[in-house]
């Protein structure tokens, strides 16, 4: 470099294509294509790509997406939440206790549960911010506390750890369908009539299509992904999320309210976990003390597959959503492909490792990290 005043010759000009490829989502896109090619080859005839099969892995992926969006934004802001899984179990149980045991109207039960869970999220964030302890430890404590309550409360009140009857209690409620209903039934009925998707062959639902609508769970997943992506990339708050996770001190020096950002992200993560829980209890009609076990790690895995940096400051909600899709497709796809189920974890490990290596490589190119 001979000219002192300009510094651009050292940075190689990048072609448009290469530049377009250099996005945090690249790893997720590549992975998504790869898993679909893989299962297309090995499991095409297994029913994985008929209506029922597609609905199956889509719902599982949508579940992961809901918690991955929260985990993604929180991770970008530099923190973890290990209490997501326990929060799912806890939220479901709260709805069952309020709505079934205490007999409150379901919409009140749902709203109160949201308030309690988001308050727990805020408490997580407050403790992390005020004590400066790693969020790993603080939320690990919350994990146990919430799981403990989830077992203790129903056992004390009802002498059992699974409370059913939620579907019945939610009948006629105005808020519950927002989480438990299915939409687009006429379209699916039509598809069934046209013979495009299979119909039930017997029983009281004979002639109805095997897939009778898009569950609200998937609508929530899509909505949260869009909201998260918009928040992160299009608002000033998004810039603060990046800044808080990238370097909290530098962000504070520039006037970013880092503590408030982090606490709000903890609250958002709790909100996502509660959405997951409400959709689940509305679909299955019961809340159990073991719901959501290990879901926190599944959320983190999806986020990491999607290209986010574990230490914060870098990542993408779209990437996390693709990570969730990959995770869901692989988890269900291995069943379809007939792989011994105990090998599921082996595959998961391999995919996680491959994704992290690929993403690290991409990130180094983008950010000039060394």
């Amino acid at each position, binding site marked *: 470099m001979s000219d002192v005043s300009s510094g651009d010759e050292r940075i190689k000009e990048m072609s448009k294509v290469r530049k377009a490829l250099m996005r945090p989502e690249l790893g997720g896109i590549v992975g998504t294509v790869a898993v679909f090619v893989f299962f297309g080859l090995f499991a095409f005839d297994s029913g994985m790509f008929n209506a029922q099969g597609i609905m199956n892995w889509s719902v599982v992926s949508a579940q992961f997406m809901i918690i991955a969006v929260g985990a993604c934004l929180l991770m970008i802001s530099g923190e973890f939440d290990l209490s997501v899984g326990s929060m799912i179990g806890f939220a479901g149980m709260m709805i069952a206790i309020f709505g079934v045991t205490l007999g409150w109207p379901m919409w009140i039960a749902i709203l109160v549960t949201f308030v309690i869970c988001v308050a727990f999220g805020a408490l997580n964030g407050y403790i992390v911010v005020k004590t400066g302890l790693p969020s790993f430890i603080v939320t690990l404590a919350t994990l146990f506390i919430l799981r403990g309550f989830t077992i203790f409360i129903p056992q004390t009140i009802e002498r059992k750890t699974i409370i059913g009857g939620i579907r019945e209690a939610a009948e006629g409620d105005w808020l519950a369908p927002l989480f438990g209903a299915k939409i687009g039934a006429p379209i699916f009925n039509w598809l069934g009539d046209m013979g495009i998707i299979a119909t039930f062959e017997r029983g009281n639902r004979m002639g109805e299509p095997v897939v009778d609508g898009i569950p609200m769970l998937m609508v929530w997943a899509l909505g949260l992904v869009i909201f998260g992506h918009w928040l992160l990339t299009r608002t000033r708050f998004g810039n603060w999320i990046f800044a808080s996770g990238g370097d909290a001190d530098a962000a504070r020096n520039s006037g970013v309210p880092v503590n408030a950002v982090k606490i709000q992200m903890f609250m958002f993560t709790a909100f996502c976990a509660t959405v997951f829980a409400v959709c689940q209890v509305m679909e299955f009609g019961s809340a159990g003390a*073991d719901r959501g076990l290990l879901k926190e790690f599944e959320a983190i895995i999806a986020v990491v597959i999607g290209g986010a940096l574990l230490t914060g400051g870098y990542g993408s909600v779209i990437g996390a959503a693709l990570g969730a899709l990959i995770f869901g497709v692989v988890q269900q796809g291995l069943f379809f492909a007939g792989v011994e189920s105990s090998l599921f974890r082996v595959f998961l490990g391999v995919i996680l490792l491959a994704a992290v290596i690929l993403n690290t490589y991409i990130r180094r190119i983008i950010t000039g990290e060394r």
Partner: protein
Amino acid sequence: MKSTMRKLLLTAAIAATPLLAATQAAAEGEKYILVSHAPDSDSWWNTVKNGIALAGEQMDVTVEYRNPPTGDLADMARIIEQAAASQPDGIITTLSDYDVLKGPIMAAVDSGVDVIIMNTGTPEQAAEVGALMYVGQPEYDAGLAAGKRAARDGIESFLCVNHYISSPSSAERCQGFADGLGVDLGNQMIDAGQDPAEIKNRVLAYLSANPKTDAILTLGPTSADPTLLALNENGMAGAIYFGTFDLGEEIIKGIKAGVINWGIDQQPFLQAYLPVVVMTNYHRYGVLPGNNINSGPGFVTADGLEKVEEFAGEYR
């Protein structure tokens, strides 16, 4: 970079090939899927796996085993949906939470897949979801029978070591036992967790806090094995009345040594083996037994242990 990706893909494909080959090179007959509610860590289900393997071999059918890795029943519902989507000839599944599982099971039945309920659930629930039959041991009844037996032996208080607190059927066993004794369950059931060291220490803690406890009831090898260690440690082995559900190698040894008074064998082998045989014959020849099959309870005591001992943990 492209080459890196290609390498990764290639590696994944190569790693996967033998697994796929191994599982698909099974029989050419009917395809069945057995779905259990047990987490990966539950060793008791080995007998079930051996049962379906043997039945698959003898009947020349493919039987796959599926379970939710963490024991989350909501995940299990997805597995049943998935199993139905892959269009097998039949599904054999446990019914450990009626609310959660009835939807997916009924959808499977309605889409033309035959279902047999095994292990957990009740005969009534099995009929309710449209299953062909129920093969297993009704949990509450088994607990009740055990409780009555213990009452005859003069027991008035007990400790129920529940290692699977989130499954209602586990609590039903304890409840049945309490009702058989004619006492209130109260705080006599503890959540022991799945970790052997934790189970052992919780049992020790409970017994030192409640030294007047007459009996111990464990719900399977997962809780029985550590409880045996605990009793050896605090010297109550042989002194305290000890009954357990299910069998396993250590439990057999315990019965032989006189530490365990009896084991309730629900004969999981039959729960896995019989549905496969029944379903295959139904699909091939249209024959079906007219009733549910109770695989248990059978009390195993120190008398006539030889056969039990030989196959414990494998077929017993």
